[in-house]
């Protein structure tokens, strides 16, 4: 629970730090705050319990999800360079909003009450709408923010509607009580709103993790938002969203597995097919990663389909592997694209990576590992992530679903290799790229993390 308290306070403090003359303190201060939140998160380890009048629950699983969120946030903030490039920017506010959004994300990992889930989703979403449009003078950014806001607000509305229906059916917002009710034998049929409620609630959450067919906002928003916030969106929002989906289905609705599994399977297949096939045709690296993000939502849904006692740790592992690889990939993109401007915006085509191996071999290696991890090639964390979700789905007997997923992984390899080929085998123009030591450390850590988890997946797996 402590990270929620810590980040709420430090978010306010950060806002006031903005009054200081020097903006340079903001980046280290924010990093420090997130680090403190990360450490405070560990206090509850092995001390499960309910907090705030049964509103939130701390468990080892939720602490792990929170750790992944805070770790990703730390890495992403470190890559932000303090937003001081833009003289009109208000860095203090960005940092403050980032910290507030983390509060929402953390609530989504450990809610015990559906109201808390809704508040968490809203805090996170509203922050993201603002950050998406933070590049004020960029018309694409504005379009993205508006699109995200309209669609997102609609999805949250549907989710709230679902929560209301569930209350009508169960007379409670508490997710454990709802389960007890569902387990009681009844003679009558269950009310229709129960089913509608579950469906609407899932639709709202699946929109946030950009699973097909609720993915239409993703490519435009990812492309329009400043890359640093795209990274934030594709890692933290996804981790929090899947933590919430898993939690609500596992704690509350696992007795209704026979009702919702078909829906989840259809969405998993749609996500995998649509995203992977569309990604092949993308020439923009950022758009390609947007579709890759949809496809990873599809893979993580496989774990949900195979809901069982190992699903939680599968999703934890997958989120971590995916976050590390995504942060590396976007980190490389931020650096490679900053020099080249097209119409006042950084050039984000795959061609911007041409000749990267000559300009900066370290960045090329980081890119390679992250792409291999996203593609799920052995030696990287992404392989075990995929392996675990496949094993989960197979344990429920969905071998045919696996065949689809596997075919789509093969398609995935095709587009994930485009950046690698660009980096190593194409001639690029421009000068060598110099890296600041902070960037080197952060990208080195994410890459090393991907490889270490690829060799010793039990390091994370054993925690649960």
């Amino acid at each position, binding site marked *: 629970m402590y990270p929620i308290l810590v980040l709420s306070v430090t978010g306010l403090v950060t806002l006031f730090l903005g009054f200081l003359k020097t903006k340079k303190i903001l980046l280290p201060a924010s990093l420090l705050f997130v680090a403190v939140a990360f450490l405070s998160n560990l206090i509850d380890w092995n001390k499960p319990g309910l907090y705030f009048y049964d509103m939130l629950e701390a468990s080892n699983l939720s602490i792990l999800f929170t750790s992944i969120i805070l770790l990703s946030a730390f890495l992403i903030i470190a890559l932000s360079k303090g937003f001081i490039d833009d003289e009109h920017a208000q860095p203090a506010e960005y940092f403050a909003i980032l910290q507030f959004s983390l509060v929402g994300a953390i609530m989504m990992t450990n809610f015990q009450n559906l109201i808390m889930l809704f508040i968490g989703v809203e805090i996170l979403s509203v922050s993201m709408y603002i950050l998406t449009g933070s590049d004020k003078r960029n018309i694409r950014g504005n379009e993205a923010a508006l699109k995200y806001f309209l669609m997102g607000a609609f999805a949250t509305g549907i989710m709230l509607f679902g929560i209301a229906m569930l209350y009508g059916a169960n007379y409670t917002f508490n997710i454990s009580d709802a389960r007890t009710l569902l387990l009681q034998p009844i003679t009558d049929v269950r009310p229709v709103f129960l089913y509608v409620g579950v469906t609407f609630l899932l639709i709202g959450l699946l929109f946030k993790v950009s699973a097909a067919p609720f993915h239409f906002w993703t490519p435009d928003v990812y492309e329009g938002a400043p890359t640093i916030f795209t990274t934030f969106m594709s890692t933290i929002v996804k981790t929090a969203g899947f933590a919430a989906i898993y939690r609500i289905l596992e704690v509350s609705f696992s007795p209704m597995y026979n009702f919702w599994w078909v829906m989840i399977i259809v969405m998993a297949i749609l996500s995998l097919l649509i995203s992977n096939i569309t990604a092949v045709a993308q020439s923009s690296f950022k758009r390609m990663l947007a579709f890759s993000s949809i496809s990873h939502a599809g893979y993580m849904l496989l774990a949900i389909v195979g809901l069982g006692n*190992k699903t939680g*740790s599968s999703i934890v592992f997958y989120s971590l592997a995916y976050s590390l690889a995504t942060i590396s990939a976007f980190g490389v993109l931020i650096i490679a694209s900053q020099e080249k401007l097209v119409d006042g915006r950084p050039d984000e085509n795959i061609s911007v990576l041409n000749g990267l191996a000559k300009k900066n071999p370290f960045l090329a290696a980081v890119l390679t590992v992250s792409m*291999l991890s996203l593609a799920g*090639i*052995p*030696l990287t964390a992404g*392989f075990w992530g995929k*392996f675990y979700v*496949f*094993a989960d789905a*197979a*344990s429920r007997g969905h*071998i045919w679903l*696996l*065949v689809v997923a*596997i*075919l789509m*992984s*093969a398609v995935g*390899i*095709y587009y994930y*290799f485009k950046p690698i*080929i660009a980096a*190593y*085998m*194409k001639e690029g123009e421009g000068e060598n790229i110099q890296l600041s030591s902070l960037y080197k450390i952060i990208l080195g850590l994410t890459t090393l993390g991907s490889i270490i988890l690829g060799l*010793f*997946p*039990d390091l994370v*797996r*054993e925690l649960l």
Partner: protein
Amino acid sequence: MLALTLILIPLIGSLLLLLLKGSNIGTSKNVAIVTSLATFVIAIYAFATFNAQSPIEVKYSWMKDLNINFHLSIDGISLLMVTLTAFLVPLIILSTYKHSYKNHASFYALILFAETALMGVFMARDIFLFYFFFEAALIPVYFIAAIWGGKDAPRITFKMFVYTIFGSLFMLVALVYLYIKGATADIQQLYTTAKMISPTNQGLLFWAFFIAFAIKMPVLPFHTWQPDAYSESPTPATMLLSGLLSKMGVYGLIRIMLPLAPIGVANWGLIGMILSVAGLIYGSIIAIQQNNIKRLIAYSSFAHMGLMAAGVLSGTLNGIQGALLQMVAHGINAVGLFFIVKIIYDRTNTRDLSALGGITQKTPALSIYFMIIMLGSVALPLTNGFVGEFLLLKSVYDKNAWIGAIAGLTIILGAVYMLRLMQRSMFGESNEVTAKFKDVSGSEIAVLFPIAAMVLLMGFFPNIFLKITEPAVNSILQMIK
């Protein structure tokens, strides 16, 4: 411990090379050769002290909750493949001594890394560990081929990469299925699980495994990536691909497919065999018409792999023993032949058979080595190709006389294309391209001599190798019955 060192030494060498990145090319070459020779020494020690009754085992827990272990073991079959790998990698590194590759440290690091993964594949006794190394072996070779390859290499090697990964993903589905059924990932324990699986599902397992391994070898009709990839890759990558990576496919057939889908093999093996033999004939006929010498050897490789696959699919002692012996023979011969092609290309700047000729007049040493390796490849008695090919043909013939008879054509066709290669390139009148051809020297002899010696040694004493693998092969055959 011994098994672990075989993996760790090349791995450490590879990391060391990456750390020494700034140093000069001589250091890189020396580190690479010393590491690979150290691995070879360990492998020879394992070979000399091998005892079929007490195989070498290493087992660490890797993923506790899933019961997946880092389980290595060396039985006769593994020992043969490990020794082959340890023998060929130093030769491959040595073959690059007269050439200086840019980014040499990464280049040699990738070769050693490939060796690490290959060792892992041949020793793994856990299906997921096997899969892990199986895929991992491809990555370094892909990068060597794509980065140091010819102009068209990025496109062609990418095709190879996607093709082979695509195949292995089918294997992954099959392995996950077996793992869920048997609740274990240990290959030995899964052998008993496999018997409980229904014939229909075994048929699916058979195809999943067969496609994965057939792409790797390759077998018709999954071979379309191979000729281009072999000819566009730099020679060290081609040697790794043809000498060692293709052997992972045959090894997989023996270790994984035969015992894990025995009924599937019984029901569908004949179709696989027909495909293999068709590929054998098809590859040989194309080889006869090839004028590019590197492509010619690529197609001959394709033909040889077809015969090995057919032998394994026969599911008999002769077939598997023949395939194992032939794997070693072909691995050695392929590395030798591709090296000779490289020597010719380096000196004449052409791979066109019609532009060559009359090289023998200037090069007594090269001619002798070429002749010996060529005869091994043609499977002349008393060379290394003979016993393996004989056993393979016998096993195919026993299974189905018609297929056996057609496969027998390989003896004639193989002789035609290899002799044509030898005759057109080495004999005849010399022309301006070949007039100033220098004979082999130094490091080139250091590569060719061990290869030629092995061609003859294996030809005279095939029993050294057959004896080592026989108990292991028998224990796998026990599982099929």
